[in-house]
């Protein structure tokens, strides 16, 4: 039981930080560039651990995100569930991609997510987002390798602590 909890603790902590980062205020100019932190962190844990980031976990996380941003309940949940599904499906391949190729896959995942969101938003009758809305996935792609290294290191230290 305890090892399981030790495996989950860093995941929860990093996801919580990602949630905070996704609603922390940014200047209006930079705001459209904000990467989808929650998705990036989720992708990382989905790639690096097995059996923890299930579709259900992604769904719950999406609901929390919906509550936080006050968006339609289920919107982020849908996006994250689909993203987790894709990552889980192609996990064996994604894991052994070189970093740049992995970053490109992350870009594809993020763009796919934005398409889902825009689809929902138009169904709902809200106005379409500005063109800058599509910049965020690219920022996410650029951030990915660094985030990967950072989280990998973080995971390494926390695992180390557990064993010692």
């Amino acid at each position, binding site marked *: 039981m305890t090892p399981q909890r030790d495996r989950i603790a860093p995941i929860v902590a990093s996801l*919580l930080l990602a*949630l*905070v980062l996704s*609603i*922390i*205020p*940014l200047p*209006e100019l930079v*705001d*459209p560039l*904000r990467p989808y932190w929650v998705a990036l962190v989720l992708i990382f844990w989905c790639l690096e651990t097995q059996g923890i980031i299930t*579709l*259900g976990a*992604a*769904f719950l996380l*999406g*609901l*929390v995100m919906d*509550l*936080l*941003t*006050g*968006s*339609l*309940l*289920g*919107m982020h*949940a*849908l996006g994250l*569930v*689909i993203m987790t*599904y894709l990552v*889980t*499906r192609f996990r064996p391949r994604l894991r052994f991609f070189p970093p740049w190729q992995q970053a490109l896959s992350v870009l594809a995942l993020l763009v796919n997510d934005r398409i889902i969101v825009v689809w*929902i*938003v138009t169904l*709902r*009758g*809200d*106005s379409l*987002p500005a063109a800058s*809305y599509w910049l965020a996935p690219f920022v996410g792609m650029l951030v990915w390798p660094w985030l990967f290294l950072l989280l990998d290191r973080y995971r390494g230290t926390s695992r180390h602590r557990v064993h010692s």
Partner: protein
Amino acid sequence: MRGDALVGAKFSGQAALTARLMMYVLMAIVLMAMDHRGKYVPRLRAQADYLVEPVYHLVEWPVRALRGTWSFFQNTQSLIRKNSELADQLLAQQSELQRLVALNEENRRLRALLDGSEKLDIEFQFAELIDVDLDPFSHRVMIDRGKDRGVEVGQAVIDGNGVMGQVEEVNLHFSRVRLISDPNHALPVQISRTGLRTVAFGLGNTARLSLPSLPREADVREGDLLVTSGLGDRFPGGYPVAVIEVIDRAEGRMFAEVLARPLAALDRGREVLLLKSLPAPPPTEELLPAEAQPGLIVEEGADAASTTGTDPPADSSEASTDVSLMETATEVNEIGDEASLETDQNIGSGDGDSENPATSDSARVDEANSTEQQP
């Protein structure tokens, strides 16, 4: 989901995964549909919001701390400058306040003359915006007052310059406010110069409101001030909303395309005022038949204004009488609702300064006339 069948056939695990995906997708869609239709989910959502509230505090805390240190290190010079600026502003506003006292007096007199009901006082409550970025598709902000301070759904939110929006969701310590620029927001307004009533819609842009239901021949000018009309029972009447900026009267269309610029600092304000919802008003003038209450003239004037708006342009003499009627309506409404309006109007309309005294005088005369004519 490409190659679903292929992989699914190979690994039963994959098939199970796909099945679970379908289940969650379906769940998400049902949730969204229910949330959109306002069935059950909103209530659940209000409960669940308590759970995520700590995250807001987590976000708010470093921002506050940063701002605190910033103001601590601001040098004295800039503080002195700001202080003198504020003193100037205070002086200017005090002189306006004096005028307001006189206007208030006049208003009471006129209302007594018209046998109208006394206007209810409106209570204010200060609130501050919480620095969080919400869903980019709807224009909403969060304020740091909630149920514990007696905030209620539907309360109007204004800032120093104009109407900002209305409270949409109330939680224990915070509330969400839908801004007037939200694409799903409609605000009943009237043009303060003519009394013409219409509805201002948000466009998803903090610098623009749209007035799609103004007839092409309507008496609208660039620089006209829009104020809340008080219809719809959400916003008290007479608060400045926006200034008309663009009017496009293209041939062959029924309606003019009118855009207005909101006066409130929708994208950069921090301090806001919550207007305490009005206590249930006694049967207002609007609802009573004309014979019962001479005060109705006000409303009739406004109605006349909106009907003349829809008619094709009449010849000028007729139009002018209508205009004077409209002015009567506006004048009374204006003084009744908000004296500060007059000053705003001066700022809002470029040529207002030269015209205003004359029109208000003539309006008063007209008003006397119409009061006599009515019975």
